[in-house]
């Protein structure tokens, strides 16, 4: 039994690290059903592992998350060179990590290039009497083109800004509790206890 305990002891550590082979998993669980010493060893290892994971760590700013679609305004300012000093390194650091924001930045850049390639819209004559007095009257075909260009610019801008959807912060743990509450009235719950916050690694 002492030799068996030593073997299982090594497997317990591998088991917590997710490194057990399929056959070893059943061996460990079967043994834990009969050996109090190994159960105590397992609990100690688990507590140590939990303690390591709960050591303080630096929290990233709220917007540095994978679904940070609200980073879009910063990306636009970044392209235009308008980020303030403190924001610039954070945006750069985030872009190095986030594929989604890099793709969005690329899309913004393309759109900005496209918008800049549109025909320039001249202000209506009534807004500038001097220009109206000096400049020749536009040909008829130039007016629709200018209007179309302005419309395209508006559409592009609206399309880019509409891709940013509001982000809701939800307590997903409450989802688990609601699911568990409902599952608890089904017979299957008795053999498959459904607890989420309790027992999470």
């Amino acid at each position: 039994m002492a030799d068996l305990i030593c073997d299982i002891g090594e497997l317990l550590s591998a088991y917590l690290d997710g490194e057990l082979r399929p056959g070893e998993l059943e061996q460990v669980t079967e043994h834990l059903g009969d050996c109090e010493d190994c159960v105590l060893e397992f609990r100690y290892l688990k507590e140590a592992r939990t303690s390591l994971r709960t050591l303080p760590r630096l929290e990233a700013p709220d917007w540095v998350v994978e679904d940070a679609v609200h980073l879009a305004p910063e990306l636009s300012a970044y392209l235009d060179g308008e980020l303030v000093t403190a924001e610039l390194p954070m945006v750069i650091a985030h872009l190095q990590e986030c594929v989604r924001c890099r793709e969005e930045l690329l899309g913004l850049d393309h759109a900005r290039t496209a918008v800049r390639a549109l025909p320039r819209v001249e202000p209506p004559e009534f807004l500038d009497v001097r220009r109206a007095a000096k400049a020749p009257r536009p040909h008829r075909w130039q007016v629709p083109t200018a209007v179309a260009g302005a419309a395209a610019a508006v559409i592009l801008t609206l399309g880019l800004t509409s891709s940013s959807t509001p982000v809701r912060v939800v307590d997903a743990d409450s989802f688990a509790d609601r699911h568990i509450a409902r599952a608890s009235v089904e017979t299957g719950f008795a053999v498959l206890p459904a607890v989420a916050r309790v027992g999470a690694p």
Partner: protein
Amino acid sequence: MRLTRRTASVGVIAISTVLMTSLPAAAGSPVLFGDLEEYLEAAQLADYAGQQLVVTVFEGSTTAGILGIEHAANTFMVGDGTTEAVVGGGKVKSAQPVLLSSYTQLGASDRYTTAPPRDVRRLGRSAREVDVLEGTQLRARLVFDVETGAPLSTRVFDGDGGIFRLSSMIDFDPRPRKIYDSNGYDSREYEVIMPASVDGLDTDVAGYRLGDRYAGPDDVYHTFYSDGLFSFSLFEVAGSVRADTFDDATTVQYGGSKYKVFVTPSQMWVKWTTPGTTYVLVGDLPPDHLEDVLGELPRPRKRSFFSGVWRRFFG
């Protein structure tokens, strides 16, 4: 031997005695079970306490935990040493208590059958091992304590026959130390979840039957499905969602679509988005069932540029 009225009477008495000893016995004695529903109902009513080891294997990774359990009066008291919850009867009393205002029990389905049980020993106790079959495939192996009907061990297998989840009592006491009065609660302490209409919803999703739908106070819709053994809930949230739960999630591909998946010892969490809606699925279903279910739910999609423009102009 010459058959007379006397010998015939003795024979009838003898046969009757044999039959009566094989019928279900009185409460407190070992019980012979029939189908899966009977085993599960007995487990629901069992009184017991102990430590339970729960392990889940998913995509080559293992996650595990030990839970302290007290079960009595169809109510679980569960703790992991730092947090505790009381679960049962449509209620969860934890840090944020939740109470369902109503529910429709689904009960057994015809998806599963059981093979003839085998007598085994577990934790020094007489037990019965029952194989749960889905067609011809072994889906679960359950071990029940003969004296109490309590589940001593549960193995859930994936579609390829590999083990997906294992829960095993590593310490067992047929006498729970605490009994929670599930009827003696103050509903004002709970967040009450109200029912919502199920009109227009699929009544069956990959073998999981529609149970109930709820509208939470945070405008989150919650729809519950069960196949009689496993279950899941689908949460629909308008807009994008940020949830700490998925900070450590991995991206898994099902049917050509990508999902965020996070696995705890007893639950699967899946998150994905469609234009305007974020879905979160929580459940204990095995991976092959999960893939089938996701194939029948709305697929992940991103809003196109022009649909965003259209939405901005026309709503």
